[in-house]
């Protein structure tokens, strides 16, 4: 028996939720970044899975979107980490619940 699309989706959903968990519950800014990366990876997994299980033959759209989203995720990570460092320089902390200057 070979795994169905459903299984892949379940895996990616789990992955997504884990990412969300990391992004929501941890206090360290880097954890939030890690969580976001995990969520993006889950999305990529979905794209690829849907491309693979979609009606064949077809242009590799899912693959393309995955590639582009990987590139964009890399850019996002770079900028995010740079911001973490800048914030750390400024406030001497990377703990996001101490960074609430913008509260109303």
């Amino acid at each position, binding site marked *: 028996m070979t795994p169905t699309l459903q299984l892949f989706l379940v895996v990616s959903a789990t992955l997504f939720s884990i990412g*969300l968990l990391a*992004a929501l519950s941890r206090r360290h800014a880097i954890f939030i970044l890690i969580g976001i990366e995990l969520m993006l990876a889950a999305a990529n997994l979905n794209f690829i899975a849907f491309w693979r299980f979609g009606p064949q033959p077809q242009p590799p759209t899912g693959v393309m979107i995955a590639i582009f989203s990987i590139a964009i995720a890399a850019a996002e990570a770079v900028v995010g980490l740079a911001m973490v460092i800048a914030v750390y320089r400024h406030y001497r902390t990377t703990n996001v619940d101490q960074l609430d*200057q913008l*509260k*109303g």
Partner: protein
Amino acid sequence: MTRGIVTNLWLIPAAPLAASLIILSLSNSRRSAGAVLAIVGQVVALTLSILVFSLTLQTPGFRVVHNFTWFTFGENALLIGWVLDPLAAAMLVMIALVGLCIFIFSIGYMADDKNFTRFFAYLSFFSGAMLGVVIANSLLLLFVCWELVGLASYLLIGFWIEKPSAAAAAKKAFITTRIGDMGFFLGILWLYGRSGTLLFYDDGRGCLENAGLIALGASATFIALLIFCGAVGKSGQFPLHVWLPDAMEGPTPVSALIHAATMVAAGVFLVARVYPIFSLGAINGVTPSLSVVVSIGVITALMASLVALGQFDIKRILAYSTVSQLGLMMVSLGVGGVAAGMMHLIAHGFFKALLFLGAGSVIHGCDQEHDIRKMGGLRRLMPITFLTYAVGMMALSGMPFFFSGGWTKEEILHATAHWHASHLPHYLMLAGIVLTALYMTRQMIYIFLGNRRAASEHAHESAPVMTMPLIVLALCAIFFSVVLTPAWPWLHGYLTGEPAPFDIARLIQPMLFVSLALVGAGIGLGVWMYRKAGAQHGQRPAETDPLEYAQPALFQFLKNKMWLDELYAHTVIAFSWMGARLSDWMDRYFWDGLVRGFGGLGQIFGIFTTDFDERGINAGVDETTAGARGLGRLISTGHSGQIQTYLGVIAIGMLALLLLYAWLA
């Protein structure tokens, strides 16, 4: 073959432009690299120019164009292109050669300037833009390059930007020429509106060819005059000549470039280029627009050469001489001697560059002294400069037979003599020649003869890198006359496309002797007047000019440039100032009073309404605002500033959306 060359004609201006871009990208310390690049670019341009020049020699009346679509808007496309004809080719060679000499000269002259590389970048840019003007086959392209020339001149005149006078002069030059360009641009628009094309030559459809000219019809006069405005601005014709003497604030090579090769030549070249528009519907060579050109030219020529008499700044004198020569060219163009005008322009390019570089050498020798009264006796100290300068002076004052200037002037006089409208310009030109000879003699005497004075004590001959260009240009100024003699009017024939037979008999003609006599008279007069100039003589103190001593009032008049700047200051500028004052007053008293009156009425009305306001309206408003404030506070508590909270809210929203879809499905 030919076609291919013309297609790549753009390479000629491209070479210096590219050079300037590369130089700009260099660091300021790479001086030698900058200079070398600039020179290389210019040499490339020169070689290519000579190539195309030789190409145009093959057939008389040679003209090849290459047009292409620049961009299309709507259904009609805007075409630009290059043209190669004797006019362009001759100008190309002249500009490239003179430019090259000036470049080499400036290596010596700017040797110890901290912005050396930037200077060469600007120079290359300048010459590139001018070459572009020359090869343009579209009025639009020409205008673009024209404005680039203006920009370059602005940058170069204000090169020593730390000097306030330089900055002011740059601004003045830029704005004054803009005034002319305004008219030029209007002319372009009008032309495009009438003829629907801006190409000069487009095998029959161009705006300088029959079809286009017919389309112009009666409006040609006005278009011509508007375009002429641009020429007036660029070529420093009266009344827009005021920027040209001030442009002397720039480094001397720049002045040379502006006055000899590039900037001022552009105006004359423009008129020559669009000459068909001027001469459209001419009755034996006279049209209203041409008459305007002639009169402007005459006024400029005389005015400038008179003013030159009263100046002490070596470069200003030359500047005014340029203005007057340009006036001469305009006259020549106006009376129909296009070839003569262009010939004089080209010849003038050489000897004026020579004069300016000579002046530069003198200034360099007398450590940046501009006042001719402080010089003197440089003849022995700077022999090469002296000789070359003398050649330039002879050429400028139009000494025939040996110096290029003489033949071209003679040609111009010839043209003016045969003008049907009136003979006044002719006689005025004769007077102008005398004056030219006069002030040049004055300058020579002041600078090179007589006793040494303050600045010339420690003067020294300049380095070979500066004198070599002088010699080259001097030789040009002399041997150029070979192709100019009426005996063998080669250049004339080349420009007009007519055959140029050799006929020694035509060498001797009355006009020649007339001009010879006039020049002789001028020089003689000068020698007699200024023989003791700069020295104490009689009860005249050393630093007063003989003319000043004889005719103080006249001299003051000339010295202050006929008070033209002041005139502008008290008319144009004063009018606007008065307008401003007037509106200010109106604003202060009239409108203000009116407003106050209404305000008073409003107050009175207000007193009645306040009462009702207090009781009726305010209460309600206060309630509302209180409610709004409370709401705001309530909402703002949501803005915890915690990104995780926001993320969580987003997640909840996503979940809600998911459930909604699931429920819908």
